[in-house]
């Protein structure tokens, strides 16, 4: 799932300076689950913004809406009749949602209220961590189900660096476990340690971000 967090309020208020009539639009899917941009966060953020702007921009009004999945044009259609009456839209969806609104309503200014961070999972209440970088060529089969691309700070594919100590990564020993320690432990548990004797060839990054924006096409589904 996509994990995001709110931008600093000063940055958001600065982006709102030119506008008088703003519509906040949340998304009740990924960003709601990571407590960043669902209906509740829309209410919280708009309340703070109204309080903050009361003195500096008293003429500014902020209305609140929330759609189910902002990356789906069909689900944003409910906004079509009213969106034209606002100077700007402040979206609490991920970057995908923000761009969907912008594409769908080309006459409307759409501003992001969140920083979209990564694909990850909730570790516990209030804690999310990264699991997949979307490299486009998944290697989890060879690494005991632990992604070296994402979870090794240096993306190493052939064993740990010298900064692995006591199972922790030197980049941030408190918060980051060494992915290679995890991989070793997991393979040992699965009785597959011999997999580590194979040399992993240099990764072809053209399937990742390095090959330009990507598309997926299902020919059998696309008419």
């Amino acid at each position, binding site marked *: 799932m996509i994990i995001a967090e709110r931008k*600093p*309020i*000063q940055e958001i*208020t600065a982006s709102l300076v030119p506008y008088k009539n703003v519509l906040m639009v949340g998304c009740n899917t990924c960003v709601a689950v990571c407590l960043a941009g669902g209906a*509740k966060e829309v*209410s*919280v953020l708009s*309340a*703070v*913004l*109204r*309080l*903050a702007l009361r*003195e500096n921009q008293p003429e500014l009004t902020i209305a609140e809406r929330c759609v189910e999945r902002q990356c789906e044009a069909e689900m944003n259609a409910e906004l079509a009749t009213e969106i034209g009456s606002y100077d700007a839209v402040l979206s609490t969806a991920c970057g995908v949602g923000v761009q969907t609104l912008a594409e769908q309503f080309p006459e409307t200014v759409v501003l992001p209220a969140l920083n979209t961070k990564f694909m990850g999972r909730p570790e516990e209440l209030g804690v999310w961590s990264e699991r997949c970088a979307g490299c486009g060529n998944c290697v989890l089969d060879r690494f005991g189900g632990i992604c070296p691309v994402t979870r090794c700070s240096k993306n190493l594919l052939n064993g740990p660096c010298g900064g692995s100590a006591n199972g922790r990564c030197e980049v941030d020993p408190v918060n980051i476990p060494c992915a290679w320690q995890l991989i070793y432990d997991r393979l040992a548990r699965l009785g597959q340690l011999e997999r580590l004797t194979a040399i992993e060839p240099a990764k072809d990054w053209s399937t990742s971000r390095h090959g330009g924006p990507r598309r997926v096409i299902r020919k059998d589904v696309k008419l």
Partner: protein
Amino acid sequence: MNKLVIIGCDRSAGEALRSLQETGYCLPEGVIYQPLPCGGSLDVLHVLRALESGAERVLVLSCYADACRSFNGNTWAEKRTAAAQALLTEAGLGQERITYRQVSPNMSADLGAWIHTLINLEPVEAQDRA
């Protein structure tokens, strides 16, 4: 316009307020008390809405640590109050508009004193300008 909105756990703050009222105390004009079943149900939104609706200050009350019937209601109340304060600070507003206090049912005198202090403070905006 309300000078002070008190939002509190009814098991601690409510008890303290009721025993204060039994001594003949009346909440001063412009002060209202909103009970919650537990500090755990305090919502950041409650605090912000109170301010939005015109309250000068908000006082959030919960029980003491380790006294909560639901274990961490006081922690939730404290964390969410802190979150509301952080939001106001980030937005350039003073966080002193929001106060959090722990209270036990027998602390009615303290409660009365806090209310007295909070309603006699200078308005926040005036402080900001000074």
